């Protein structure tokens, strides 16, 4: 109650301030109810079910509607804060995890939320259907529901509790059993108009125009949400987001919808703020993927030469305009649990790169070229394409003649991950808080053809495979963390792929938008406490 009275007091004093024509920033301290937040959306996912498609494009919209068991947090224990689960406890033998669930939560259609929904989501959706859940929950055998607010996950093989914990924010979207138990889950109409427990209900979607979310008056969070409506205005053209912000047509552009090159200018526009926080849990990695079927590239000396030829500082400074960090290995520097700097590094050194190539037996021909490669930059980001242009030049300097092949997104995925029609590719994999979720798959062998964002370069290293297998069944958190430190060393030494940089996104918002970036996955969290002042 003391919280409420303070809030009332503050808003009262803010009213007083406003009445005496004081600057409006007094408002920014007090969450205000009501209002419509309009923001830019650059893609239009058709399937909005985050329990099936665990990707940031889907989360961006549906995380406000469908909630997870826990959300990432800056200061919570183990970097988590409760959502639908109040607590989680792992058994010592690694065979079970017990979740205590929140009482009094209602689905958007009025039915109560219970442990049966969690059991259904885990067994019928996350494990068999979800892109990431297939890996993390592969040994999940059953979910016991002793009462309505307890769910006990039973694993067939010991599964590290640390991994389950780290997977909660992205992988544990709970969908309603009573909606999904009829018919095929993939074809359920709720995939396009989700029903959840979140602070906002799905309103409507007009293709090419907008998504509308409306306030859930029955939300379990006290007084939340503050906003009445969220409108995702579809602006596929990146240059238009900045103009729309300046024209006050939208109040927020997340996920770097404003091009990096425009940030310097737009930060000087009165009424707009540039925020680089709130994406700590969504680190993208700029990676050179290598096809080890090419004789030249199967030689570790050639891969080391390529690593030495890339000026990472230049890439961070020029391609990312400083909004990135140089990478040392497969785990990003900003990861608090696993990162180690104690790995072999490859400083920018053209002479050394040339020497390594000569040593490998690929001498320069008369025209200064050693061999030719096909380079496929991923088309998803401006930065991956630009880095492709840079890499072509960097390789030319050491006598490797790279021919760039541009594809659209589906053709790129097919060419690299199914047809293996590449020598080098530029990819942006995501680090999701634990190497076992989506990082080890990038280097591990034995993955079937056609799995996107996995090792499709034909790389096979038995020592590394053994290390990954051992880490996946090590229950002790400290021992598991050490194994992943060793994994980073091994990857950096043998270079199945080359990690160049790590970046996150930037938000640009009007000053009136409050409670921005208050957790490490803010753009894809539920926004129950986001508000509009003034």
């Amino acid at each position, binding site marked *: 109650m003391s919280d409420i009275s303070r809030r009332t007091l503050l808003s009262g004093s803010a009213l007083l301030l406003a009445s005496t024509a004081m600057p409006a920033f007094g408002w920014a301290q007090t969450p205000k109810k009501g209002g419509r937040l309009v923001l830019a959306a650059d893609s239009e996912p058709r399937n909005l079910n985050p329990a099936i498609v665990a990707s940031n494009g889907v989360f961006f919209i549906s995380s406000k509607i469908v909630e997870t068991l826990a959300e990432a947090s800056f200061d919570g224990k183990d970097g988590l804060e409760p959502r639908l689960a109040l607590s989680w406890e792992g058994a010592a033998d690694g065979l079970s995890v017990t979740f205590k669930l929140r009482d009094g939560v209602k689905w958007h259609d009025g039915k109560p939320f219970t442990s049966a929904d969690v059991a259904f989501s885990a067994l019928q959706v996350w494990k068999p259907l979800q892109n990431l859940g297939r890996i993390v929950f592969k040994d999940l055998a059953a979910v016991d529901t002793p009462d309505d607010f307890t769910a006990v996950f039973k694993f067939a093989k010991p599964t590290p509790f640390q991994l389950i914990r780290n997977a909660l924010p992205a992988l544990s979207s709970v969908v309603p059993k009573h909606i999904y138990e009829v018919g095929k889950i993939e074809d359920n109409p709720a995939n396009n108009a989700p029903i959840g427990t979140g602070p906002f209900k799905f309103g409507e979607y007009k293709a090419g125009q907008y998504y509308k979310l409306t306030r859930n008056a029955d939300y379990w969070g006290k007084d939340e949400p503050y906003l009445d409506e969220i409108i995702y205005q579809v602006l596929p053209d990146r240059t238009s987001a900045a103009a729309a912000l300046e024209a006050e047509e939208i109040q927020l552009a997340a996920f770097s919808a404003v091009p990096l090159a*425009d940030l310097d200018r737009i930060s000087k526009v009165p009424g707009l703020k540039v925020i680089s926080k709130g994406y700590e849990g969504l680190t993208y990695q700029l990676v050179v993927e290598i096809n080890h079927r090419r004789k030249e590239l199967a030689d570790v000396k050639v891969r080391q030469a390529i690593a030495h030829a890339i000026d990472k500082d230049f890439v961070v400074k020029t391609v990312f305009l400083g909004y990135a960090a140089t990478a040392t290995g497969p785990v990003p520097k900003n990861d608090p649990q696993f990162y180690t700097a104690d790995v072999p590094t490859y400083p920018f050194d053209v002479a050394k790169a040339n020497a390594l190539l000569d040593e490998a037996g690929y001498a320069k021909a008369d025209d200064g070229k050693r061999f030719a490669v096909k380079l496929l930059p991923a088309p998803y980001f*401006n930065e991956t394409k630009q880095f492709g242009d840079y890499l072509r*030049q960097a390789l*030319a300097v050491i006598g490797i003649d790279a021919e*760039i092949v*541009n594809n659209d997104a589906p053709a790129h995925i097919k060419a690299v991950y199914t047809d293996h029609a590449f020598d080098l590719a530029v990819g942006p994999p995501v680090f999701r808080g634990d190497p076992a979720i989506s990082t080890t798959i990038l280097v591990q062998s034995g993955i079937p053809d056609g799995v996107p964002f996995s090792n499709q370069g034909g790389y096979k290293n038995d020592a590394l495979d053994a290390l990954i297998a051992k880490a996946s069944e090590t229950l002790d958190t400290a021992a598991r963390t050490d194994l992943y430190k060793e994994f980073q060393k091994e990857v950096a030494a043998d270079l199945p792929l080359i990690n160049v940089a790590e970046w996150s996104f930037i938000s640009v918002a009007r000053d009136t938008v409050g409670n921005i970036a208050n957790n490490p996955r803010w753009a894809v969290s539920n926004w129950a406490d986001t508000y509009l002042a003034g």
Partner: protein
Amino acid sequence: MSPLNRFLHRPETLAGAIILGVLFAMALFASLLFPGDPQAIAGPALLPPFHDWSLPLGTDRLGRDVLAELFHGARTSLAVGLAAAAAALLIGAVVGTLAGFAGGVVDEVLMRITDAFQTVPSFLLALAFVSVVGPSLGVVVAAIALGAWTGPARVARAEVLSIRERDYVAGARVIGMHPLEIAFREVLPNALPPVLALSSVIVAAAILTEAALSFLGLGDPNRVTWGGMIAEGRTVLRTAPFLSIVPGIALVLTVLGVYLAGEGVVETAAVRRSLS
């Protein structure tokens, strides 16, 4: 007055000729003035024009020399423009001559095919073709020619229809020349001038189409093109507008030059015809 004098007498034609001359010089001397890879990184990124005289037009987002890119881009633009126009004129002249000279079913079939190609907007046709086959210089040339040959075909056919009734054609028939020989040796050369008059329009359109394809990311990514330069500059339009403006101006001047010079040629030819 000699034809050349008459040609250069008109000020707009002279301007067109000068622009074209400069363009050809840029394309010819690009490798001499800017040896090596024009896409090599030459300095700090996003250097504005006229700040550093070793990089007079500044640098792009990766620090590549804009002037060098402009010169090498002239090469691509001219090469694509001329090659696409030549291909379009060749296909058009052959199809038109065959249709006009043979008449009957052949004429019907060829002209309906021409109709079919004419009903599809040529740019869409090029877009579809390049996205299916994959972007490279040869494919882009073919894609543009695919949408541009119908105009020459129609003009050639109309011209052939009137020529084939002339006495010398009848004469050729009488002495037993093969019909194809008559069509391509006797008729086509005389039907060519009005077809060639279309060339300036086709070259100009081809250069624009190539730029538009590159702008949409369907150009050859391993080559500098003006359209690609504009597309790259677009992401930094508000902070470094020169990156789009410089190749944009080059594009406008080129198309203008080709058009003015082409008009001049047509006028000169027309005067000569009426004089003779």
